[in-house]
């Protein structure tokens, strides 16, 4: 008799189960199904986002941020037709200080050829940023990443990171950490000649 499993409600099973109504989704079931599909979609989206890295081609995400030490904003799409070099930095970041003079020099070399440099200070305290700009003698425009969204749009992993954006607003080149001077120059030339 070992094969018979005990069922305390065995009596009921001797009676035919009546046919149920032919409804597939009860409200309860529908809610569960919807929630499940939604969560699967969210996870899929999240995994896709996670797999993405800094844009190395395609349109550069736009931003419209307040200038540091000056009135007004810097809006990326206002500079269509010019090459834009975007540099993410922070006053607390040591490598940023190291590369800053090179960027300044590069800007001085190219500012008359339709190249715009813009620095974006991330997670920074405004007065620290201003002191940094002053100390290093940076004269190209710098903005605050107010709200922290631009940093996310460019999926930066830290600072410094540099993007070269072509005249058509497409990313031409991305530099992780400090770019070598010759590499940055080559990228700018490439963008200018495109």
């Amino acid at each position, binding site marked *: *008799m070992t094969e*018979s499993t*005990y069922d*305390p*409600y*065995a*009596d*009921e*099973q*001797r*009676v*035919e*189960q*009546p046919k149920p109504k032919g409804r597939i989704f009860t*409200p*309860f079931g529908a*809610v569960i199904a919807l929630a499940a599909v939604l969560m699967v979609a969210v996870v899929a989206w999240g995994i896709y986002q996670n797999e993405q890295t800094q844009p190395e081609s395609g349109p550069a995400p736009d931003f419209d941020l307040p200038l540091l030490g000056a009135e007004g904003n810097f809006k990326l799409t206002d500079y269509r037709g010019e090459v834009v070099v975007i540099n993410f930095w*922070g*006053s*607390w*970041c*040591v*490598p940023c200080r190291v590369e800053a003079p090179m960027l300044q020099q590069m800007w001085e070399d190219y500012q008359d050829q339709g190249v715009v440099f813009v620095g974006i200070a991330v*997670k*920074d*305290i*405004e007065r*620290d940023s201003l002191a940094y700009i002053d100390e290093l003698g940076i004269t190209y425009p710098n903005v*605050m990443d*107010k*709200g*922290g*969204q631009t940093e996310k749009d460019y999926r930066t*992993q*830290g600072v410094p990171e540099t993007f070269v954006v072509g005249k058509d607003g497409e990313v031409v080149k991305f530099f*992780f*950490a400090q770019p070598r001077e010759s590499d940055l120059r080559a990228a700018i030339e490439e963008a200018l000649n495109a």
Partner: protein
Amino acid sequence: MKKLLKVALISVFLLSFAPAVVAQMSGEELPPGVTADDVYRISNKMYCEVCAGVPLSDCPSVTCRAWRQEIARLLGEGYSDSDIKSYFAENYGSAVTGVPLKTEDRNIGLGLPALLIVLAGVVIGGRLLLLYQRGESRALQAARAAGLRSDYDRPVPDNVDADALERFMRLVEERK
């Protein structure tokens, strides 16, 4: 290969950071009239992305130290706690506070779970009522109508261990 290169670059990157990263927590210069307890009170309820899961007050990174220093400075200038929080939220995104400060975000953020809870309550309450009114299975109803023995009237024992009862019933089954 590209990934490997990236990993290598990241470690170089981190290395170049080394002297800066090993800064210690707090040690901010406090303006007159501001105590470390004041800074802690605010920074303990704020968060920075650098230290996920740890409040700003306990994050050892340089960025966070600068933030705490700024809190101390703003306190010295007479800003209130909530002014400072909204100032940071404005500048660094709403994630710096534990609960979003913007009314719209608050309404969505707190309203949605509330709505879901009420919905769950309706579902559960509905099932309870349904069970109360017509919970008896049609099979059982049929069985009772046919005069078959049913365990419906079996008392629900509460003073007997359920496991023991179960084993006992199994024994009875086997004896049949």
